[in-house]
Protein backbone atom coordinates (compact mmCIF):
# COMPACT_ATOMS: atom_id res chain seq x y z
CA UNK A 1 0.00 0.00 0.00
CA UNK A 2 1.98 2.92 -1.33
CA UNK A 3 0.01 5.62 0.46
CA UNK A 4 0.39 4.07 3.90
CA UNK A 5 4.01 3.25 3.15
CA UNK A 6 4.61 6.87 2.34
CA UNK A 7 2.87 8.10 5.46
CA UNK A 8 5.06 5.76 7.47
CA UNK A 9 8.07 7.19 5.67
CA UNK A 10 6.97 10.74 6.45
CA UNK A 11 6.59 9.72 10.08
CA UNK A 12 10.21 8.58 10.01
CA UNK A 13 11.41 11.92 8.65
CA UNK A 14 9.48 13.84 11.26
CA UNK A 15 10.75 11.55 14.00
CA UNK A 16 14.30 12.55 13.02
CA UNK A 17 13.28 16.21 13.02
CA UNK A 18 11.50 16.00 16.35
CA UNK A 19 14.22 14.00 18.10
CA UNK A 20 16.88 16.40 16.84
CA UNK A 21 14.92 19.50 17.88
CA UNK A 22 14.33 17.83 21.21
CA UNK A 23 18.08 17.75 21.77
CA UNK A 24 18.19 21.54 21.37
CA UNK A 25 14.91 22.52 23.02
CA UNK A 26 14.22 19.71 25.41
CA UNK A 27 17.66 18.63 26.54
CA UNK A 28 19.76 21.79 26.33
CA UNK A 29 16.75 24.00 27.04
CA UNK A 30 17.63 26.37 24.18
CA UNK A 31 14.39 27.56 22.68
CA UNK A 32 14.93 27.37 18.93
CA UNK A 33 12.22 28.33 16.47
CA UNK A 34 14.33 27.83 13.38
CA UNK A 35 14.44 24.10 12.84
CA UNK A 36 12.76 24.31 9.45
CA UNK A 37 15.69 26.42 8.26
CA UNK A 38 18.18 23.61 8.92
CA UNK A 39 15.76 21.13 7.45
CA UNK A 40 15.68 23.29 4.31
CA UNK A 41 19.46 23.51 4.10
CA UNK A 42 19.75 19.72 4.29
CA UNK A 43 17.02 19.26 1.73
CA UNK A 44 18.48 21.71 -0.75
CA UNK A 45 22.12 20.69 -0.46
CA UNK A 46 21.15 17.01 -0.55
CA UNK A 47 18.96 17.63 -3.57
CA UNK A 48 21.64 19.70 -5.30
CA UNK A 49 24.09 16.85 -4.90
CA UNK A 50 21.63 14.34 -6.33
CA UNK A 51 20.70 16.49 -9.30
CA UNK A 52 24.03 18.06 -10.24
CA UNK A 53 26.70 15.55 -9.32
CA UNK A 54 25.52 12.12 -8.28
CA UNK A 55 28.38 9.65 -8.23
CA UNK A 56 28.40 6.59 -10.49
CA UNK A 57 27.78 4.25 -7.57
CA UNK A 58 24.65 2.41 -6.38
CA UNK A 59 21.75 4.60 -5.29
CA UNK A 60 21.95 3.62 -1.65
CA UNK A 61 25.56 4.75 -1.45
CA UNK A 62 24.62 8.02 -3.09
CA UNK A 63 21.81 8.31 -0.57
CA UNK A 64 24.26 8.06 2.30
CA UNK A 65 26.63 10.58 0.76
CA UNK A 66 23.69 12.90 0.08
CA UNK A 67 22.45 12.59 3.67
CA UNK A 68 26.00 13.26 4.83
CA UNK A 69 26.23 16.37 2.69
CA UNK A 70 22.83 17.57 3.91
CA UNK A 71 23.72 16.89 7.52
CA UNK A 72 27.14 18.50 7.37
CA UNK A 73 25.88 21.59 5.55
CA UNK A 74 23.16 22.05 8.12
CA UNK A 75 25.70 21.56 10.93
CA UNK A 76 27.94 24.21 9.45
CA UNK A 77 24.99 26.56 9.26
CA UNK A 78 24.26 25.54 12.85
CA UNK A 79 27.75 26.63 13.89
CA UNK A 80 27.52 29.92 12.01
CA UNK A 81 24.10 30.74 13.45
CA UNK A 82 24.76 29.23 16.86
CA UNK A 83 27.91 31.17 17.68
CA UNK A 84 26.22 34.57 17.66
CA UNK A 85 22.72 33.48 18.72
CA UNK A 86 23.38 31.08 21.55
CA UNK A 87 24.55 33.95 23.69
CA UNK A 88 20.92 35.01 23.81
CA UNK A 89 18.42 33.59 26.25
CA UNK A 90 14.92 32.17 26.11
CA UNK A 91 12.49 34.13 24.01
CA UNK A 92 15.20 36.28 22.44
CA UNK A 93 16.92 33.19 21.12
CA UNK A 94 13.59 31.98 19.76
CA UNK A 95 13.10 35.16 17.78
CA UNK A 96 16.68 35.25 16.51
CA UNK A 97 16.54 31.66 15.25
CA UNK A 98 13.19 32.39 13.67
CA UNK A 99 14.79 35.35 11.91
CA UNK A 100 17.67 33.25 10.63
CA UNK A 101 15.46 30.50 9.29
CA UNK A 102 13.41 33.08 7.42
CA UNK A 103 16.59 34.57 5.97
CA UNK A 104 17.62 31.08 4.84
CA UNK A 105 14.27 30.64 3.14
CA UNK A 106 14.49 34.04 1.44
CA UNK A 107 17.97 33.16 0.18
CA UNK A 108 16.66 29.92 -1.33
CA UNK A 109 13.78 31.75 -3.00
CA UNK A 110 16.34 33.98 -4.66
CA UNK A 111 18.58 31.16 -5.86
CA UNK A 112 17.65 30.23 -9.39
CA UNK A 113 20.10 27.32 -9.59
CA UNK A 114 17.92 25.33 -7.22
CA UNK A 115 14.67 26.44 -8.80
CA UNK A 116 14.02 29.57 -6.73
CA UNK A 117 10.33 30.17 -6.21
CA UNK A 118 9.40 27.36 -8.61
CA UNK A 119 10.81 24.67 -6.40
CA UNK A 120 13.53 22.11 -7.03
CA UNK A 121 12.45 19.44 -9.50
CA UNK A 122 13.78 16.15 -10.86
CA UNK A 123 15.24 14.86 -7.61
CA UNK A 124 15.88 11.12 -7.86
CA UNK A 125 13.93 8.78 -5.63
CA UNK A 126 16.71 7.30 -3.58
CA UNK A 127 15.01 7.01 -0.24
CA UNK A 128 12.65 4.22 0.71
CA UNK A 129 11.12 3.07 3.94
CA UNK A 130 14.12 0.94 4.89
CA UNK A 131 16.77 3.63 4.49
CA UNK A 132 14.66 6.25 6.25
CA UNK A 133 14.11 4.03 9.26
CA UNK A 134 17.77 3.09 9.33
CA UNK A 135 18.43 6.82 9.77
CA UNK A 136 15.71 7.02 12.40
CA UNK A 137 17.50 4.31 14.35
CA UNK A 138 20.88 6.00 13.86
CA UNK A 139 19.46 9.34 15.07
CA UNK A 140 17.79 7.91 18.14
CA UNK A 141 20.78 5.78 19.12
CA UNK A 142 23.18 8.63 18.52
CA UNK A 143 21.24 11.08 20.66
CA UNK A 144 20.14 8.73 23.42
CA UNK A 145 23.67 7.34 23.82
CA UNK A 146 25.07 10.85 23.82
CA UNK A 147 22.69 11.75 26.63
CA UNK A 148 23.96 8.88 28.78
CA UNK A 149 27.54 10.13 28.77
CA UNK A 150 29.12 13.13 30.40
CA UNK A 151 28.54 15.34 27.35
CA UNK A 152 24.85 14.57 27.48
CA UNK A 153 24.68 15.28 31.20
CA UNK A 154 26.48 18.56 30.59
CA UNK A 155 23.86 19.46 27.97
CA UNK A 156 21.05 18.71 30.41
CA UNK A 157 22.73 20.70 33.17
CA UNK A 158 22.36 23.83 31.01
CA UNK A 159 18.62 23.33 30.94
CA UNK A 160 18.56 22.75 34.69
CA UNK A 161 20.64 25.70 35.81
CA UNK A 162 23.11 27.46 33.60
CA UNK A 163 24.87 29.36 36.37
CA UNK A 164 25.31 26.26 38.51
CA UNK A 165 26.63 24.39 35.49
CA UNK A 166 29.25 27.05 34.88
CA UNK A 167 30.16 26.99 38.56
CA UNK A 168 31.19 23.35 38.34
CA UNK A 169 33.36 23.91 35.30
CA UNK A 170 30.98 23.16 32.46
CA UNK A 171 31.62 25.34 29.44
CA UNK A 172 27.94 25.92 28.82
CA UNK A 173 28.48 27.72 25.55
CA UNK A 174 30.43 24.78 24.14
CA UNK A 175 27.72 22.31 25.08
CA UNK A 176 24.91 24.54 23.87
CA UNK A 177 26.71 24.76 20.57
CA UNK A 178 27.29 21.00 20.56
CA UNK A 179 23.57 20.35 21.05
CA UNK A 180 22.67 22.97 18.46
CA UNK A 181 25.09 21.63 15.85
CA UNK A 182 24.16 17.97 16.34
CA UNK A 183 20.46 18.88 16.32
CA UNK A 184 20.71 20.96 13.18
CA UNK A 185 22.86 18.29 11.55
CA UNK A 186 20.19 15.65 11.97
CA UNK A 187 17.58 18.11 10.75
CA UNK A 188 19.76 18.39 7.64
CA UNK A 189 19.79 14.61 7.25
CA UNK A 190 16.01 14.63 7.53
CA UNK A 191 15.98 17.30 4.83
CA UNK A 192 18.01 15.19 2.43
CA UNK A 193 15.80 12.15 3.09
CA UNK A 194 12.75 14.33 2.54
CA UNK A 195 14.10 15.49 -0.82
CA UNK A 196 14.92 11.92 -1.91
CA UNK A 197 11.45 10.70 -1.03
CA UNK A 198 9.30 13.64 -2.18
CA UNK A 199 11.42 14.22 -5.33
CA UNK A 200 10.30 17.84 -5.29
CA UNK A 201 10.98 20.51 -2.72
CA UNK A 202 9.74 24.06 -2.47
CA UNK A 203 10.92 26.91 -0.24
CA UNK A 204 7.44 27.42 1.20
CA UNK A 205 7.53 23.85 2.46
CA UNK A 206 10.10 25.02 5.00
CA UNK A 207 8.48 28.15 6.36
CA UNK A 208 7.99 29.29 9.93
CA UNK A 209 4.82 27.20 10.25
CA UNK A 210 6.86 24.02 9.95
CA UNK A 211 9.27 25.08 12.68
CA UNK A 212 6.22 25.47 14.87
CA UNK A 213 4.76 22.11 13.88
CA UNK A 214 8.02 20.33 14.75
CA UNK A 215 8.07 22.23 18.03
CA UNK A 216 4.49 21.16 18.63
CA UNK A 217 5.54 17.53 18.15
CA UNK A 218 8.12 17.65 20.92
CA UNK A 219 5.89 19.64 23.21
CA UNK A 220 3.08 17.18 22.73
CA UNK A 221 5.39 14.33 23.65
CA UNK A 222 7.09 16.25 26.41
CA UNK A 223 10.16 18.44 26.11
CA UNK A 224 13.21 16.41 27.03
CA UNK A 225 11.79 12.97 26.32
CA UNK A 226 13.06 11.11 23.25
CA UNK A 227 10.21 8.63 23.24
CA UNK A 228 7.84 11.56 23.70
CA UNK A 229 9.34 13.24 20.62
CA UNK A 230 8.88 10.05 18.59
CA UNK A 231 5.26 9.66 19.60
CA UNK A 232 4.55 13.36 19.11
CA UNK A 233 6.02 13.18 15.61
CA UNK A 234 3.94 10.14 14.69
CA UNK A 235 0.71 11.63 16.01
CA UNK A 236 1.11 14.97 14.31
CA UNK A 237 2.20 13.45 10.99
CA UNK A 238 -0.76 11.12 10.86
CA UNK A 239 -3.32 13.57 12.26
CA UNK A 240 -3.79 15.70 9.12
CA UNK A 241 -4.13 12.58 6.98
CA UNK A 242 -6.63 11.06 9.41
CA UNK A 243 -8.51 14.36 9.29
CA UNK A 244 -8.37 14.22 5.50
CA UNK A 245 -9.98 10.79 5.57
CA UNK A 246 -12.64 12.07 7.93
CA UNK A 247 -13.99 14.35 5.27
CA UNK A 248 -13.67 17.81 3.85
CA UNK A 249 -15.11 19.89 6.68
CA UNK A 250 -12.90 18.51 9.40
CA UNK A 251 -9.87 18.65 7.16
CA UNK A 252 -10.59 22.30 6.50
CA UNK A 253 -10.48 23.09 10.21
CA UNK A 254 -7.24 21.22 10.69
CA UNK A 255 -5.07 24.21 11.57
CA UNK A 256 -7.70 25.59 13.93
CA UNK A 257 -7.85 22.21 15.66
CA UNK A 258 -4.05 22.22 15.85
CA UNK A 259 -3.88 25.60 17.50
CA UNK A 260 -6.62 24.81 20.01
CA UNK A 261 -4.80 21.59 20.80
CA UNK A 262 -1.65 23.55 21.47
CA UNK A 263 -3.38 26.00 23.82
CA UNK A 264 -5.24 23.27 25.68
CA UNK A 265 -2.10 21.20 26.04
CA UNK A 266 -0.34 24.15 27.64
CA UNK A 267 -3.26 24.70 30.00
CA UNK A 268 -3.65 21.06 30.89
CA UNK A 269 -0.14 19.66 30.77
CA UNK A 270 2.51 22.30 30.04
CA UNK A 271 5.14 19.60 30.42
CA UNK A 272 3.67 17.52 27.55
CA UNK A 273 2.24 14.01 27.58
CA UNK A 274 5.34 12.37 28.99
CA UNK A 275 7.12 15.26 30.67
CA UNK A 276 10.85 14.64 30.75
CA UNK A 277 10.36 10.93 31.33
CA UNK A 278 11.19 8.24 28.84
CA UNK A 279 8.53 5.71 28.07
CA UNK A 280 9.52 2.07 28.12
CA UNK A 281 7.61 -1.13 27.74
CA UNK A 282 8.39 -2.57 31.16
CA UNK A 283 7.08 0.57 32.84
CA UNK A 284 3.91 0.27 30.79
CA UNK A 285 3.43 -3.36 31.75
CA UNK A 286 4.21 -2.56 35.35
CA UNK A 287 1.52 0.09 35.35
CA UNK A 288 -0.99 -2.38 33.96
CA UNK A 289 -0.32 -4.87 36.75
CA UNK A 290 -0.91 -2.37 39.51
Amino acid at each position, binding site marked *: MEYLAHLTLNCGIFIILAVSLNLINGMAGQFSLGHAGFWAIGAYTGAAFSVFSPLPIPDWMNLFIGCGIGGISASIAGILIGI*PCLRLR*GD*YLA*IATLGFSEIIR*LLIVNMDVVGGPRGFTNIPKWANLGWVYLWVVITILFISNLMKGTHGRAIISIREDEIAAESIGINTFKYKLMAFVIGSGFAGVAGALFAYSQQFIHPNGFNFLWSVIILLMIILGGLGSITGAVIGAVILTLLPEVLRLMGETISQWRM*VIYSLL*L*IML*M*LWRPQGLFGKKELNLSALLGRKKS
Partner: protein
Amino acid sequence: MSEDQLYFFYDLFQYLINGICQGSIYALIALGYTMVYGIIKLINFAHGEFYMIGAFTGYFCIRGGIPLYFAFPIAMLVPGIIAVLIEKIAYKPIRHAGRIPALITALGVSFFFQYFGQNVLGADPKAFPEVYEETIYNLGEAVSISSTQIIIIVTTLVLMLFLRWLVMSTKVGKAMRATSFNKDASELMGIDTDKIISFTFFIGASMAGAAGVLVGIYYNTVEPMMGLIPGLKAFIAAVLGGIGIIPGAVLGGLVLGVVENLVVGFWESTYRDAVSFGILILILLVKPTGILGTKTKEKV
Protein backbone atom coordinates in the same frame (compact mmCIF):
# COMPACT_ATOMS: atom_id res chain seq x y z
CA MET B 1 24.06 70.80 -7.88
CA SER B 2 23.43 68.64 -10.90
CA GLU B 3 19.95 67.40 -11.66
CA ASP B 4 20.87 63.88 -10.59
CA GLN B 5 22.10 65.07 -7.23
CA LEU B 6 19.00 67.16 -6.77
CA TYR B 7 16.80 64.20 -7.52
CA PHE B 8 18.76 62.08 -5.13
CA PHE B 9 17.64 64.40 -2.37
CA TYR B 10 14.06 64.48 -3.63
CA ASP B 11 14.07 60.69 -3.62
CA LEU B 12 15.62 60.53 -0.19
CA PHE B 13 13.03 62.90 1.17
CA GLN B 14 10.16 60.95 -0.38
CA TYR B 15 11.51 57.65 0.95
CA LEU B 16 11.79 59.22 4.39
CA ILE B 17 8.15 60.27 4.29
CA ASN B 18 7.07 56.81 3.14
CA GLY B 19 9.30 55.25 5.78
CA ILE B 20 8.02 57.38 8.63
CA CYS B 21 4.50 56.50 7.61
CA GLN B 22 5.16 52.77 7.49
CA GLY B 23 7.21 53.06 10.67
CA SER B 24 4.26 54.70 12.44
CA ILE B 25 2.20 51.58 11.78
CA TYR B 26 4.98 49.40 13.18
CA ALA B 27 5.21 51.74 16.14
CA LEU B 28 1.51 51.45 16.99
CA ILE B 29 1.73 47.67 17.01
CA ALA B 30 5.06 47.74 18.84
CA LEU B 31 3.52 49.81 21.64
CA GLY B 32 1.31 46.90 22.62
CA TYR B 33 4.15 44.42 22.38
CA THR B 34 6.31 46.54 24.58
CA MET B 35 3.66 47.19 27.22
CA VAL B 36 2.69 43.54 27.57
CA TYR B 37 6.32 42.51 27.68
CA GLY B 38 7.07 45.19 30.21
CA ILE B 39 4.42 43.98 32.56
CA ILE B 40 4.48 40.18 32.35
CA LYS B 41 7.66 39.51 30.33
CA LEU B 42 5.69 37.70 27.64
CA ILE B 43 6.40 38.04 23.94
CA ASN B 44 2.80 38.03 22.89
CA PHE B 45 3.08 36.40 19.48
CA ALA B 46 -0.65 36.85 19.03
CA HIS B 47 -0.32 40.61 19.11
CA GLY B 48 -0.24 40.88 15.32
CA GLU B 49 -3.64 39.20 15.29
CA PHE B 50 -5.20 41.97 17.35
CA TYR B 51 -4.11 44.27 14.58
CA MET B 52 -5.85 41.98 12.08
CA ILE B 53 -8.98 41.87 14.23
CA GLY B 54 -8.96 45.66 14.43
CA ALA B 55 -8.65 45.93 10.67
CA PHE B 56 -11.57 43.54 10.11
CA THR B 57 -13.72 45.27 12.71
CA GLY B 58 -13.13 48.52 10.87
CA TYR B 59 -13.86 46.80 7.55
CA PHE B 60 -17.22 45.42 8.67
CA CYS B 61 -18.22 48.60 10.49
CA ILE B 62 -17.55 50.84 7.52
CA ARG B 63 -19.19 48.42 5.11
CA GLY B 64 -22.15 48.38 7.45
CA GLY B 65 -22.46 52.11 7.00
CA ILE B 66 -20.95 53.25 10.28
CA PRO B 67 -18.97 56.47 9.76
CA LEU B 68 -15.22 56.37 10.33
CA TYR B 69 -15.22 58.43 13.53
CA PHE B 70 -17.42 55.78 15.17
CA ALA B 71 -15.84 52.83 13.43
CA PHE B 72 -12.38 53.80 14.61
CA PRO B 73 -13.09 53.59 18.36
CA ILE B 74 -15.09 50.40 17.85
CA ALA B 75 -12.13 48.89 16.02
CA MET B 76 -9.97 49.74 19.01
CA LEU B 77 -12.49 48.42 21.52
CA VAL B 78 -13.14 45.00 19.95
CA PRO B 79 -9.53 43.77 19.83
CA GLY B 80 -9.06 45.21 23.31
CA ILE B 81 -11.91 43.13 24.69
CA ILE B 82 -10.78 40.01 22.85
CA ALA B 83 -7.27 40.51 24.21
CA VAL B 84 -8.57 40.72 27.76
CA LEU B 85 -10.58 37.53 27.27
CA ILE B 86 -7.59 35.73 25.78
CA GLU B 87 -5.46 36.85 28.69
CA LYS B 88 -8.00 35.50 31.17
CA ILE B 89 -8.56 32.19 29.36
CA ALA B 90 -5.16 31.27 28.01
CA TYR B 91 -2.35 33.28 29.60
CA LYS B 92 -3.38 33.81 33.19
CA PRO B 93 -3.66 30.13 34.20
CA ILE B 94 -0.09 29.44 33.09
CA ARG B 95 1.49 32.68 34.23
CA HIS B 96 3.50 30.76 36.81
CA ALA B 97 4.50 27.87 34.54
CA GLY B 98 7.43 29.81 33.13
CA ARG B 99 8.11 31.80 30.02
CA ILE B 100 8.36 29.05 27.44
CA PRO B 101 4.86 27.58 27.96
CA ALA B 102 3.53 31.14 27.82
CA LEU B 103 5.34 31.77 24.57
CA ILE B 104 3.97 28.56 23.10
CA THR B 105 0.46 29.47 24.17
CA ALA B 106 0.89 32.82 22.48
CA LEU B 107 1.91 31.01 19.29
CA GLY B 108 -1.18 28.84 19.60
CA VAL B 109 -3.43 31.87 20.02
CA SER B 110 -1.82 33.51 17.03
CA PHE B 111 -2.38 30.47 14.81
CA PHE B 112 -5.91 30.11 16.09
CA PHE B 113 -6.90 33.59 14.96
CA GLN B 114 -5.09 33.29 11.63
CA TYR B 115 -6.68 30.04 10.61
CA PHE B 116 -10.04 30.66 12.20
CA GLY B 117 -10.07 33.90 10.23
CA GLN B 118 -9.14 32.08 7.03
CA ASN B 119 -11.93 29.59 7.44
CA VAL B 120 -14.61 32.06 8.45
CA LEU B 121 -13.69 35.13 6.39
CA GLY B 122 -11.92 33.45 3.49
CA ALA B 123 -8.23 33.68 2.71
CA ASP B 124 -8.46 36.10 -0.19
CA PRO B 125 -7.78 39.75 0.55
CA LYS B 126 -10.79 42.02 0.95
CA ALA B 127 -10.77 45.55 -0.35
CA PHE B 128 -11.22 48.07 2.43
CA PRO B 129 -14.06 50.46 1.54
CA GLU B 130 -13.01 53.96 0.59
CA VAL B 131 -13.90 56.29 3.45
CA TYR B 132 -12.85 59.63 2.03
CA GLU B 133 -11.42 61.14 -1.10
CA GLU B 134 -7.66 61.15 -0.77
CA THR B 135 -5.82 64.39 -1.32
CA ILE B 136 -2.20 64.52 -2.39
CA TYR B 137 -0.13 67.49 -1.29
CA ASN B 138 2.92 68.26 -3.41
CA LEU B 139 5.87 69.51 -1.47
CA GLY B 140 7.99 71.16 -4.07
CA GLU B 141 8.63 69.61 -7.42
CA ALA B 142 9.00 65.90 -6.81
CA VAL B 143 7.95 65.10 -3.27
CA SER B 144 4.41 64.44 -2.15
CA ILE B 145 2.49 63.42 0.93
CA SER B 146 -1.08 62.13 1.02
CA SER B 147 -3.80 63.01 3.49
CA THR B 148 -3.80 59.40 4.76
CA GLN B 149 -0.09 59.56 5.42
CA ILE B 150 -0.59 62.71 7.48
CA ILE B 151 -3.46 61.10 9.40
CA ILE B 152 -1.35 58.03 10.19
CA ILE B 153 1.62 60.02 11.46
CA VAL B 154 -0.54 62.35 13.54
CA THR B 155 -2.63 59.53 15.02
CA THR B 156 0.50 57.65 16.01
CA LEU B 157 1.98 60.69 17.72
CA VAL B 158 -1.26 61.46 19.55
CA LEU B 159 -1.70 57.88 20.74
CA MET B 160 1.90 57.68 21.87
CA LEU B 161 1.63 60.92 23.84
CA PHE B 162 -1.63 59.68 25.33
CA LEU B 163 0.04 56.42 26.41
CA ARG B 164 2.99 58.24 27.86
CA TRP B 165 0.65 60.46 29.83
CA LEU B 166 -1.36 57.43 30.93
CA VAL B 167 1.66 55.54 32.17
CA MET B 168 3.61 58.42 33.68
CA SER B 169 0.92 60.72 35.09
CA THR B 170 -2.10 58.72 36.14
CA LYS B 171 -2.82 56.49 39.06
CA VAL B 172 -3.41 53.45 36.90
CA GLY B 173 -0.15 54.18 35.12
CA LYS B 174 1.67 54.24 38.42
CA ALA B 175 0.13 50.87 39.24
CA MET B 176 1.25 49.55 35.86
CA ARG B 177 4.80 50.66 36.49
CA ALA B 178 4.74 49.16 39.95
CA THR B 179 3.42 45.84 38.64
CA SER B 180 6.05 45.76 35.96
CA PHE B 181 8.78 46.49 38.49
CA ASN B 182 7.72 43.91 41.05
CA LYS B 183 4.42 42.13 40.79
CA ASP B 184 4.42 40.47 44.20
CA ALA B 185 5.39 43.62 46.03
CA SER B 186 2.69 45.55 44.17
CA GLU B 187 0.11 43.04 45.33
CA LEU B 188 1.23 43.56 48.90
CA MET B 189 0.78 47.27 48.40
CA GLY B 190 -2.85 46.67 47.55
CA ILE B 191 -2.64 46.87 43.76
CA ASP B 192 -4.97 44.48 41.96
CA THR B 193 -2.30 43.26 39.55
CA ASP B 194 -4.71 41.00 37.64
CA LYS B 195 -6.75 44.04 36.79
CA ILE B 196 -3.66 45.99 35.80
CA ILE B 197 -2.46 43.18 33.52
CA SER B 198 -5.88 42.97 31.86
CA PHE B 199 -5.85 46.72 31.41
CA THR B 200 -2.41 46.55 29.80
CA PHE B 201 -3.59 43.90 27.35
CA PHE B 202 -6.62 46.03 26.60
CA ILE B 203 -4.60 49.15 25.86
CA GLY B 204 -1.99 47.28 23.85
CA ALA B 205 -4.55 45.50 21.68
CA SER B 206 -6.47 48.75 21.15
CA MET B 207 -3.34 50.37 19.77
CA ALA B 208 -2.91 47.44 17.40
CA GLY B 209 -6.58 47.75 16.43
CA ALA B 210 -6.04 51.41 15.61
CA ALA B 211 -3.08 50.46 13.44
CA GLY B 212 -5.28 47.88 11.72
CA VAL B 213 -7.85 50.44 10.64
CA LEU B 214 -5.20 52.91 9.51
CA VAL B 215 -3.56 50.19 7.44
CA GLY B 216 -6.94 49.24 5.98
CA ILE B 217 -7.38 52.80 4.78
CA TYR B 218 -3.77 53.23 3.69
CA TYR B 219 -3.20 49.98 1.80
CA ASN B 220 -6.83 49.32 0.99
CA THR B 221 -6.65 45.62 1.81
CA VAL B 222 -7.39 43.35 4.76
CA GLU B 223 -6.90 39.59 5.07
CA PRO B 224 -6.68 37.06 7.92
CA MET B 225 -2.92 36.52 7.64
CA MET B 226 -2.15 40.24 7.54
CA GLY B 227 -0.94 40.26 11.15
CA LEU B 228 1.94 37.85 10.72
CA ILE B 229 4.62 39.96 9.08
CA PRO B 230 3.76 43.34 10.67
CA GLY B 231 3.57 41.50 14.00
CA LEU B 232 7.11 40.24 13.57
CA LYS B 233 8.30 43.62 12.33
CA ALA B 234 6.70 45.36 15.27
CA PHE B 235 8.43 42.95 17.58
CA ILE B 236 11.72 43.85 15.91
CA ALA B 237 10.82 47.50 16.39
CA ALA B 238 10.08 46.97 20.07
CA VAL B 239 13.38 45.17 20.63
CA LEU B 240 15.23 47.77 18.58
CA GLY B 241 13.94 50.63 20.68
CA GLY B 242 14.30 48.75 23.95
CA ILE B 243 11.53 46.39 24.92
CA GLY B 244 9.36 47.64 27.75
CA ILE B 245 10.02 51.30 26.94
CA ILE B 246 7.17 53.27 25.36
CA PRO B 247 9.16 55.92 23.45
CA GLY B 248 11.51 53.09 22.48
CA ALA B 249 8.74 51.28 20.64
CA VAL B 250 7.96 54.38 18.61
CA LEU B 251 11.60 55.12 17.93
CA GLY B 252 12.21 51.50 16.91
CA GLY B 253 9.17 51.51 14.63
CA LEU B 254 10.24 54.68 12.88
CA VAL B 255 13.84 53.56 12.46
CA LEU B 256 12.71 50.23 11.03
CA GLY B 257 10.19 51.83 8.67
CA VAL B 258 12.75 54.31 7.36
CA VAL B 259 15.49 51.71 6.96
CA GLU B 260 13.13 49.39 5.07
CA ASN B 261 12.11 52.12 2.65
CA LEU B 262 15.69 53.17 2.08
CA VAL B 263 16.56 49.54 1.31
CA VAL B 264 13.71 49.35 -1.19
CA GLY B 265 14.47 52.77 -2.64
CA PHE B 266 18.20 52.58 -3.07
CA TRP B 267 18.68 48.83 -3.21
CA GLU B 268 16.20 45.97 -3.78
CA SER B 269 12.83 45.02 -2.32
CA THR B 270 14.04 41.47 -1.94
CA TYR B 271 16.54 42.39 0.71
CA ARG B 272 14.05 44.34 2.82
CA ASP B 273 12.95 41.50 5.12
CA ALA B 274 16.44 40.07 5.32
CA VAL B 275 17.71 43.49 6.41
CA SER B 276 14.98 43.76 9.06
CA PHE B 277 15.81 40.37 10.54
CA GLY B 278 19.49 41.23 10.24
CA ILE B 279 18.90 44.39 12.29
CA LEU B 280 17.08 42.33 14.91
CA ILE B 281 19.91 39.85 15.24
CA LEU B 282 22.51 42.60 15.27
CA ILE B 283 20.75 44.55 18.01
CA LEU B 284 20.24 41.39 20.07
CA LEU B 285 23.93 40.69 19.90
CA VAL B 286 25.31 44.18 20.32
CA LYS B 287 22.83 45.76 22.69
CA PRO B 288 20.05 43.34 23.68
CA THR B 289 18.37 46.01 25.77
CA GLY B 290 17.76 48.16 22.67
CA ILE B 291 18.60 51.74 21.78
CA LEU B 292 16.94 53.30 24.81
CA GLY B 293 17.41 50.37 27.18
CA THR B 294 19.58 50.29 30.26
CA LYS B 295 21.67 47.39 31.46
CA THR B 296 20.36 44.95 34.02
CA LYS B 297 22.09 41.92 35.49
CA GLU B 298 20.61 38.63 36.47
CA LYS B 299 20.59 38.23 40.22
CA VAL B 300 22.62 35.28 41.39
